[in-house]
């Protein structure tokens, strides 16, 4: 463990830039270059811990005590390997999403760039915090700015989506707050490290209630069936670039909270044995995960709009992760971390492509996008690679993580789960191939786009980055999996 105030920078810098970006945009100055450059700077900071840990022998986790208070009373930020793995991914998605979704020319009723700074501050905060109430505050910051990102274009459909998303998000937050309060009542602490120590002596009923409520709230936020109905509607009216950021950034940050609570506090070994003992927790998680895999992938099959198809497919992916997580073995959990990181990159990459296509065609219906990829070799290649990876076929990083998940699940004795995860992939082949087929061959190819629009160039850059990660990650899969494994062992309080 290293003591350093570095994690604070990841939250404080974007937070301080929120008002700056707001005033710059109000003064009708060009905010775009400034905003993208600053978000890029934050993203580079986010890469620093991973690079320093791998290349220069920095010992993670980095621990920052706010105001010098210890974990009993104060807030402690903990940049562990889990955070170091996910921070570069989420921050890169934020920079690209902000650049792609920027409304050219038209003025938006909601100031655009401050929201992205707020999203960066909130998601970085949720990923590094190790204090439950602090996590709740960051969760609400993320929720508020992601709802506003859904609505920023200001048409009636966007506000409708934002309202539906907001109601669902707030119900989820209310559950999580109830759970946090129950854990606080049981242990008298909010810091994860203190709660772990005090759990064995805490009243088991309160602890079980706390865990169940937090996990229920997180399931609402992750859109696990049967709490999923907000997600397709919430993303349909949203600009696809915002939908990409929500799928990539918000869901990853919430997944981190889930791992910290389920695995770090009580899950696998250690004090968490209490968890399996007091409640039929793994059984419920398995059930929810299985239903999500089936419903998510089958519903994706019947969608005519690309955004809805991608949204339902995310439900299936998170269901698969829940299935593996419910097995509570460290190796399966590491595979979940790996797959979560990959899903963020792949899904947001496809949403960004969808953003470019929808801007050009004015619709995100798959039939309306026919022939879109026909004369765009770069987009076509990237789209095919990303879809291949989401299905889980080689040579992509998606294959590596899905394979790791299935192998670990089978090793832990969950043959049925493995079949479910594999079956989801089989359905995914069908709907991705159908969408790809329509976007390549159907319809007459139209004229090529004018590449003068900087957003088109950023989209191509984003696709190159995403596809590059997908291919390079396949070669370096063992390496990423090793980082994920060390993340899980640190979560479990193992050797650091």
């Amino acid at each position, binding site marked *: 463990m290293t003591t350093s105030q570095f994690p604070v920078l990841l939250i404080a810098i974007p937070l301080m830039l929120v008002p700056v970006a707001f005033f710059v945009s109000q003064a009708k100055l060009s905010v775009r270059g400034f905003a993208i450059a600053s978000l890029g700077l934050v993203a580079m900071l986010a890469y620093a811990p991973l690079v320093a840990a791998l290349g220069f022998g920095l010992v993670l986790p980095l621990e920052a005590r706010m105001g010098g208070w210890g974990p009993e009373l104060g807030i402690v930020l903990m940049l562990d390997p889990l955070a170091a793995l996910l921070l570069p991914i989420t921050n890169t998605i934020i920079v690209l999403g902000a650049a792609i979704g920027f409304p050219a020319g038209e003025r938006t009723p909601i100031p655009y760039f401050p929201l992205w700074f707020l999203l960066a501050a909130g998601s970085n905060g949720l990923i590094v915090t190790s204090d439950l*109430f602090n996590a709740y505050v960051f969760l609400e910051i993320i929720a*508020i700015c992601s709802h*506003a990102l859904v609505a920023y274009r200001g048409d*009636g459909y966007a506000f409708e989506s934002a*309202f*539906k998303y907001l109601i669902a998000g707030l119900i989820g937050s*209310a559950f999580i707050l109830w759970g946090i309060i129950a854990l606080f009542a049981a242990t008298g602490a909010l810091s994860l490290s203190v709660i772990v120590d005090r759990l064995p002596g805490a009243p088991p009923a309160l602890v079980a209630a706390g865990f169940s409520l937090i996990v229920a709230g997180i399931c609402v936020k992750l859109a696990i069936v049967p709490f999923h109905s907000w997600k397709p509607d919430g993303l349909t009216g949203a600009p696809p670039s915002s939908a990409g950021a929500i799928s990539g950034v918000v869901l990853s940050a919430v997944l981190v909270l889930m791992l910290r609570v389920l695995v770090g506090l009580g899950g696998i070994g250690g004090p968490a044995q209490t968890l399996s003992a007091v409640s039929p927790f793994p059984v419920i998680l398995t059930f929810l995960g299985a239903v999500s895999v089936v419903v998510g992938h089958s519903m994706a099959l019947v969608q005519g709009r690309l955004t*809805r198809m991608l949204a339902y497919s995310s439900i299936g992916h998170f269901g698969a992760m829940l299935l593996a997580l419910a097995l509570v073995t460290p190796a399966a959990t590491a595979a979940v971390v790996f797959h979560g990181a990959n899903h963020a990159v792949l899904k947001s990459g496809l949403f960004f492509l969808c953003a470019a296509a929808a801007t050009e065609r004015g619709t995100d219906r798959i039939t309306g996008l026919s022939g879109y990829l026909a004369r765009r070799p770069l987009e076509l290649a990237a789209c095919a690679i990303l879809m291949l990876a989401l299905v889980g076929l080689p040579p992509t990083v998606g294959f590596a993580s899905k394979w790791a998940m299935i192998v670990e699940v089978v090793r832990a004795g969950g043959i049925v789960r493995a079949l479910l995860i594999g079956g989801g992939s089989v359905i995914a082949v069908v709907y991705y191939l159908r969408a790809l087929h329509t976007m390549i061959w159907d319809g007459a190819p139209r004229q090529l786009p004018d590449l003068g629009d900087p957003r088109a160039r950023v989209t191509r850059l984003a696709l190159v980055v995403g596809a590059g990660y997908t291919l390079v990650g396949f070669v370096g899969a063992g390496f990423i999996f090793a980082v994920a494994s060390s993340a899980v062992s640190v979560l479990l309080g193992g050797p650091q």
Partner: protein
Amino acid sequence: MLAPTILTGAIVLTGCAFYGLITHRHMIRLVICLNILDSAVLLVIVLLGYEPDAAAPIVRQADLQYVLGLPHALSLTAIVISACTTALMLGYAVRVHRLRGTVYVDRLTRWRG
């Protein structure tokens, strides 16, 4: 005596809020239900710091018994968050009403496929 009463009240309020969220489709009513849900949580948070016959947590004498101040700080934060989200939801409701002409969620789009 006080604690069980407040706890029961909070649970009843939560039940009311969920009943409302499930049965109503009027946007403003949904917002009110979410506010009731937040109030229920706040009651419990404040209750957690309560000690019978204890003084407010401002240190005057060393031997005095004080209530726990931390839950109060938490409840303040939760109130602020609740106010923000309420304002945001009402803002969306006004916009949806202006642009789409209805405040009933089920009369809005049925997105299919």
